């Protein structure tokens, strides 16, 4: 990264400064409306669906998505689209149509709280603790990438960049809580598009349009990277048929459903809405832009492989230690004039801050409600927990600086962490789905399923070729992403099996306590919006979901 320098001028800095000024203003303005903890953590459940829908995908559009997916685009080509079309959209639709009625209707304030009411303390603790730890670690990664960008582009030393970035994110979250985070995420979405769309178009212009890009990639002998199936490079599974199965079931079902349906960072945004229909619509509305985001994130990576000298060399095998994470930055260096450069800088900084803010705001909700209020100090006033939430934010940000420094010591940390959190999400999803639709499932089965599923995933990873790097034993002939798909699938299956078996021999919760949490115990009125039948088609969650599903299938067919 040391030779990556961008020629930023006064105008570029002006555009970035304008962005930061607006962000801090939003934080201050949101503060005036924060009067109790529900406001701080869940925006008083008042926001319209398009706001939360954009925030939903913006919360996910952080460092990992922009830098990581463009890197994947540079390395693997169009198969990276799977992370969006298979690995995100179907799960988002499922969340909106099937699961949101339970989350929203049960009025839980967090996903772990749902676990507690459904399964009791054991499962709740497992979920809350692992989620909280995960958020701090991921916030640290976002912060670290943010600071390295600042360092590489502006020449500031890493420690200074970390502190300044952390301070900005901390100020607007502490001031305005979730409202500030959500408003900023909506703003960030537009700035990110304003930055990446011109980048993509200019890049395409340089290579001679889409046809020119196709020609150049084909000439370089990499025509298979222009198609998204069967993606054997991505999955690491040699057989095309097994690769497709691995991607659709492992990535598309278990991993992606596990993430999108249970990750409180995302669900929190949907819970902040003003009605059941709005809550259901949030992930569905988010699915539409999400489908098209890869065109401005993955395509630049592919363009870089035929335009940027360093990337061309790396793909030809000349530079074996090239860090693909730099691909999009190098493309920016080579194509954008000053002016647009400022917008791009603001957009990138926005994305990284969005990611970090989302992690921190989800962390402090789970910490304050699920851990502190539940196990440390119960029955205090609402204002007390609001204060706890604010302090938790400060603590989490400081901790994120710490985990960012840890992250700086490892080049492969992101890969490991993604695999590990896949381990937690897959069993979580299994337990959730079973618990939502099978009332006989017992609290003991809740936590035992989670634990055994995670152990199964860890075991598969150890037996694989390289999921744990050199610690893996290589007994099973799978590696790369394919290993994490198989591990997640194993976790899912084991969790289900163990939960079913354990439920046969332990006592379930009384049925009366399951109202609103289990499908069969929830009267229809509680899981539907009373006004739903009066909504026009473009506000009806299920119709929108149907349209989105058709669109994403069409995209898959066009780009196969």
């Amino acid at each position: 990264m040391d030779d990556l320098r961008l020629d930023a001028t006064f105008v570029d800095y002006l555009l970035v400064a304008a962005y930061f000024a607006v962000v801090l203003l939003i934080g201050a303005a949101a503060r005036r409306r924060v009067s109790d903890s529900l406001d701080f953590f869940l925006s008083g459940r008042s926001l319209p669906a398009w706001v939360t829908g954009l925030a939903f995908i913006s919360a996910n559009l952080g460092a990992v998505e922009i830098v990581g997916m463009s890197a994947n685009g540079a390395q693997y080509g169009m198969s990276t689209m799977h992370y969006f079309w298979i690995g995100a959209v179907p799960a988002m639709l499922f969340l909106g149509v099937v699961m949101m009625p339970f989350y929203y209707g049960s009025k839980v304030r967090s996903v772990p709280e749902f676990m507690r009411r459904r399964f009791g303390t054991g499962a709740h603790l497992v979920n809350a603790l692992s989620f909280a730890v995960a958020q701090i670690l991921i916030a640290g990664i976002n912060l670290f990438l943010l600071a390295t960008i600042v360092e590489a582009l502006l020449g500031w030393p890493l420690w200074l960049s970390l502190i300044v970035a952390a301070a900005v994110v901390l100020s607007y979250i502490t001031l305005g809580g979730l409202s500030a985070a959500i408003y900023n995420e909506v703003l960030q979405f537009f700035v990110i598009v304003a930055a990446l769309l011109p980048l993509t178009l200019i890049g395409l212009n340089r290579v001679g349009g889409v046809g020119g890009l196709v020609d150049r990639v084909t000439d370089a002998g990499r025509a298979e990277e222009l198609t998204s199936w069967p993606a054997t490079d991505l999955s690491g599974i040699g057989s095309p048929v097994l690769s497709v199965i691995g991607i659709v079931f492992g990535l598309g079902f278990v991993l992606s459903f596990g993430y999108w349906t249970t990750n409180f960072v995302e669900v929190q945004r949907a819970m902040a809405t003003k009605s059941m229909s709005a809550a259901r619509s949030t992930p569905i509305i988010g699915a539409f832009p999400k489908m098209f985001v890869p065109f401005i994130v993955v395509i630049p990576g592919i363009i870089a492989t035929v335009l940027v000298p360093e990337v061309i060399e790396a793909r030809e095998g000349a530079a074996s230690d090239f860090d693909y994470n730099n691909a999009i930055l190098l493309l920016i260096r080579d194509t954008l004039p000053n002016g647009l450069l400022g917008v791009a800088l603001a957009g990138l900084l926005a994305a990284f801050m969005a990611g970090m803010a989302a992690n921190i705001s989800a962390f402090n909700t789970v910490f304050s409600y699920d851990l502190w209020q539940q196990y440390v100090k119960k029955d205090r006033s609402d204002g007390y927990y609001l204060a706890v939430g604010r302090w938790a934010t400060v603590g989490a940000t400081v901790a994120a600086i710490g985990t960012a420094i840890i992250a700086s010591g490892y080049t492969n940390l992101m890969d490991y962490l993604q695999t590990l959190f896949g381990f937690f999400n897959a069993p979580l999803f299994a337990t959730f789905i079973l618990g939502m639709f099978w009332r006989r499932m017992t609290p003991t089965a809740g936590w035992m399923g989670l634990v055994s599923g995670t152990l199964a995933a860890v075991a598969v990873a150890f037996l694989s070729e390289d999921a744990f790097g050199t610690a893996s034993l290589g007994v099973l002939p799978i590696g790369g992403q394919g290993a994490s798909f198989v591990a997640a699938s194993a976790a899912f299956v084991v969790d289900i099996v163990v939960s079913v078996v354990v439920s046969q021999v332990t006592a379930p919760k009384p049925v009366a306590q399951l109202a609103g949490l289990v499908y069969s115990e929830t009267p229809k009125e509680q899981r539907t919006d009373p006004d739903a039948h009066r909504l026009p088609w473009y506000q009806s969650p299920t119709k929108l979901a149907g349209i989105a599903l058709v669109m994403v299938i069409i995209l898959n067919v066009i780009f196969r």
Partner: protein
Amino acid sequence: MSSSNSSARSEHAAGAFDVRNVIAALIGFYGVVLVLMGLFGNSPEEQERTGDVNANLWAGLAMLVFAAAFALWSRLRPIVVEAPPDRQDPEDDGSGRVAPGH
């Protein structure tokens, strides 16, 4: 627009009204700066990098159009605050909370 979920806190303002204006303002500002850069700051070296297109100018114009559209949307479809204006605030708890668009 009204929601039975928040009936216990009926004076709560919707708030999204602000966001559209903020977005329009920031993108509009970017648009103005980029158009100026495109008109006065263009150079042959930059044209070469973008493949002979005055990128700042076009991007700036697109942003201005977008910002105008957003501002128009926010004007034509304002978010209605939930409590009807003629009911005098029995819920006014003196918290000094400010409604948007005042």
